[in-house]
């Protein structure tokens, strides 16, 4: 039997939240993950298209930091004027697919899809991003590292949607960088990617936020490595293969085996920090 599936595209957030409360709907944003998951010529199920809700798109400064609307696209992020702490996020955006994907794919979609290889996650982890979730019942804010709980798994409830990502002011300090490793130049799923944000004062690292993606079920910060950097000059040598290996749990797949992922993640992280050191030098 063909089921008549609805397609809702409200202008108002309240309206969307009401619809979500009423029944099981699939949220659609850029559809760059939704459409590839079906071979049909039409999105399956009843759809709640949130792209007409203006308040969900765009980046704004708030008293507490920066607010990135859920449907902000990669292109929006690339074009935005953001502090150096967000450069890693912008570099990640430039590495997503190619222009067609960047023009459509949204930051919240990337998180909800919860692929271990989601390029947005490591830089957002280094920014201590929080996920703002709204339902008809209210709003809750969940740290990003608690939001994604496994491959393709998040704590998003059926009646909720992400309205924004919040980056606290305290994490908008310092500089950041991002590197991605894949088997071809464009349109490539990461074998590994690393992001780093460092705050350096008087030549000494006072804050280090390092994250690795695609090397475990979810992207992760590496506190063991971060701890090694604090109180020293920026020096990638403290990022040893062994130390990184203890912090991640890589898988083997068609793109690479687990041993390679561990080694390459460490190398990539060192290079990310090295690039960052050069950025910092250029900035002073």
């Amino acid at each position, binding site marked *: *039997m*063909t089921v008549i*599936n609805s*397609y809702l*595209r409200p202008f108002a957030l309240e309206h969307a939240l009401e619809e979500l409360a009423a029944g099981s709907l699939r949220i*659609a944003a*850029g*559809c*760059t993950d939704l*459409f*590839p998951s079906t*071979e*049909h*010529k*039409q*999105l399956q199920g009843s*759809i709640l*298209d949130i*792209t007409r809700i203006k308040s969900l798109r765009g980046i704004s400064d708030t008293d507490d930091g920066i607010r990135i609307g859920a449907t902000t696209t990669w*292109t929006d992020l690339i074009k935005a004027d953001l502090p150096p702490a967000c450069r890693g996020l912008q570099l990640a955006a430039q590495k997503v*697919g*190619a*222009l*067609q*994907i960047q*023009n*459509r794919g949204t930051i919240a979609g990337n998180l909800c899809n919860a692929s271990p290889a989601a390029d947005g996650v490591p830089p957002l982890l280094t920014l201590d991003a929080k996920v703002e979730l709204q339902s008809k019942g209210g709003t809750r804010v969940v740290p990003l590292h608690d939001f994604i709980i496994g491959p393709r798994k998040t704590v998003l409830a059926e009646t909720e949607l992400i309205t924004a990502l919040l980056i606290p002011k305290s994490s908008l300090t310092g500089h950041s960088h991002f590197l991605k*490793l894949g*088997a*071809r*130049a*464009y*349109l*490539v*799923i990461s*074998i590994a990617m690393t992001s780093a944000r460092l705050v350096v004062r008087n030549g000494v690292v006072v804050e280090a936020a390092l994250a690795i993606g695609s090397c475990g079920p979810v992207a992760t910060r590496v506190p063991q490595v971060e701890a090694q950097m604090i109180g020293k000059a920026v020096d990638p040598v403290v990022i040893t293969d062994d130390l990184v290996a203890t912090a991640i749990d890589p898988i083997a797949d*068609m*793109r*690479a*085996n687990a*041993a*390679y*992922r561990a*080694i*390459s993640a460490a*190398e*990539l992280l060192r290079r990310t920090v090295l690039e960052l050191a050069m950025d910092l030098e250029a900035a002073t």
Partner: protein
Amino acid sequence: MTSITLNIAHQTHIVKTHMARRLSEVLRDDLKLKSVKIGCDAGDCGACTVLIDGAQHCACLVPAGQADGRKIETLETSEPQLFARLQDSFLDHGAAQCGICTPGMMMAATELLRAVPSPDQAQVKEALAGVLCRCTGYHKIIAAVMDANSQTTVCPPPKAGHAVGQPIRRLDGQAKVNGTEVFGADFIPDGTLLVRAIRAQHYHADFEFGDLLAWIKMHAGVECVITAADIAGINCYGVIPPFADQPALAEKTTRYRGEPVALVVGDPKALEALGLDDFPISWTPRPHSLTQADGAGPDATLLHDHRQENTLIRGNVVSGAPDSAMVEAAHVVTGQFETSYVEHAYIEPEAGVAWMEADVLCIQACTQAPVMDLEDTAKVLGLPLNKVRIIPSAAGGGFGAKLDVTLQPLLGLAVLKTGMPCSMVFSRSESMQASTKRHPGSMQASIGADAAGKVMAMTFHGDFNTGAYASWGPTVATRVPVHASGPYLTPNYRATSRAVHTNGPTSGAFRGFGVPQAAITQESLYDDLAQKCGIDRLEFRRINALRDGDVTPCGQTLQAVGIIDCLDALKPHWDEFHAEVTAFNTTSLAHKRGIGIASCWYGCGNTGLPNPSTVRFGITPDGQFNLHQGATDIGQGSNTVIAQIAADALGVQVGMINLVGPDTAITPDCGKTSASRQTFITGRAAEASGLALRAAILRLTNLTHADEITLEGGMLCVRQDQNDQKISLKDLPADANGYVLCAEETYDPPTTTLDENGQGTPYAVYGYGAQIAEVEVDMALGTTKVLRMIAAHDVGRAINPQLAEGQIEGGIAQGLGLALMEEYLPGETENLHNYLIPTIGDMPHITSILIEIPDTEGPMGAKGLGEHVLIPTAPAILNGIHHATGARVTKVPALPHRLLAAIKASQT
């Protein structure tokens, strides 16, 4: 259903559609904007790229609801002036081969050119990065976009008799650049039913149907289900009739993942929406093997009862005394190499439509071998040959996989059962599951040389995974031993091969029929051997290269051998690269550069078997010069090259020629587009028919020769020394085909079958080539970037240098993929997201050098080229990696983790 409003070319279109439908479907189906191509429905290929409010989007990822109220631009509907310039530039540069990626490329380029009228190379790469091209290697596309807004000087068309050798535009190019080309999925008349296949999702399984009738009743819009029980003919086809073993629809057992077991036919909209998960079928999985080692192993289940040890066929070529010569050799190298399944990944998935015209079944679909399609389809359907007509649509790439019938018999079954026109369009994953692949090979070889570096002996064995069915397995098994020596004199030789059945996808024809795999083995070992002999690697190859009068391992004496010339052409670049690389490596630790070289030879046409082409060339009473050009042009350019040859043979301007395509009802058989045979064999037939037509014209005029043949107001004018003779065409009697003057000539190359030791004359013409690659390896990550390639190819005569260059660049792209990234794993990489082919950013700088050592057998001296170009690329890259790192990669693709492991191993 609701309506959306689209703003297209300053007009408002209100379209009734479901909001969740892909915009690509709305544009193609409702608005008939067929330039929007569908290659994947997943954002991976970019063929569907359109502009929405001026920015590029994959239309397949846009729900119609999100396009509502927005400005949409497609190739047909965008800014005419910019498009005219872009189209001209694409034609001038030869940037469209098959043309399936062209609309998407142009849309992406349009966004860029509006912002940056004269972009640089990096800007073009960024802007076009989301569109894949499998044919061109991207270079000509980049050049076309960079030059779109610059003034071009238009070359005058070549004079009569002087088309050969000129880089003229493709004669079939206009439709490719303006979006009107009709590919397999582009012509589906209203009222056509849709056919969908039910396919095995197990590697090997028995199956039983449940209650099909009940299922049909439950699903509105489904007309019928077709199973093997509906097949009236012989449910067993195959490209090589003695080995035919493949059912159109499986009976009781499926042997590979993706094998079709039933067809569902019905109303397109209703059937498209069905999940088909509830189709009544039960599966009992059977043990399976996926690798050649497992397939040939003692525990393997036989796929075909009569093929012991799962062995389809063995091949061998033996000459001299290889074993004793090897013992006597001063230096011997031995190695084992492995290659993976490689997917053709043409951007156009298989598609077509079929209908009845009186009592003739007409099938219009993309193909490389219309007459073979006809024969196999008629056999399966139980129809006489004259009741099936194959009308090839434009093919959006083929590279070998569109030689085998794919959907033709299935469409035929559906039309015969329903009496209605039926269409079938494979999804990307269906295409990847069901189509043939390059044979994975496990090869070992030893090569011995004397103290002076002369090769004395070579032994080679390759096991090739031929998958579930025979397809072109026998061809690979015979071609490999013939070619495994490379273009080098090898007096003592034994090469053997075996094609092994497994439950992997069927391996078939893919540019080179196993020779690229064998070349990886031989050319890698040549590097090692050169090193052992202490001789420069290019010089070592030069010492051993075949020369005129040399005898091949098959015992054939060669003439017009161009390999030395290719190597010599590379020599200055080789020296220059070496100096540069040495300088680079003294200062760089993290990245190391290296130079690699490899050669190829490749026989054009079938191996020791007849493969004629017939070309008809006729003049109508109203003065049309119709060239029945039966060589399907899958982008490689036969429509242009064959016409250039025919025009020069006849002595008219090539622009006067009207091409009649490879429709089996109106054009004689030119065989299949494979084995690099079309320029040579169909070219010879075209040359002969051009000459015969010229002779017929001269006979009518009583002239001995003609300086010029032209057409003036229905009169054929023949000029000799200022003396004009006119023939009134409409006064001549027309033949059965409607021609007042006509020639039809056949050419079949002089070859002999090979004896039990592989001795004989397998081919009449060989082409030669050599390439050098400069690579840069990231020593800590194991990633490789190919920086530059120089390719020297002896084409005998470059009929159209621009098309030849396009073949080289495209071949290098595929060779690079084979070397570095392409590995098809059934069940895992059945889409273009996980199966990686080179993007615009992966291509090296390429310099092509065309060498012309004419072959007396080839038309105007020409040799084949299409497959040769890919053969040296992978080994040249692997040799470059070895030179850079000291690590020898023995399994391709050299994915970063494999290369890093090899680097670590070489350092201990």
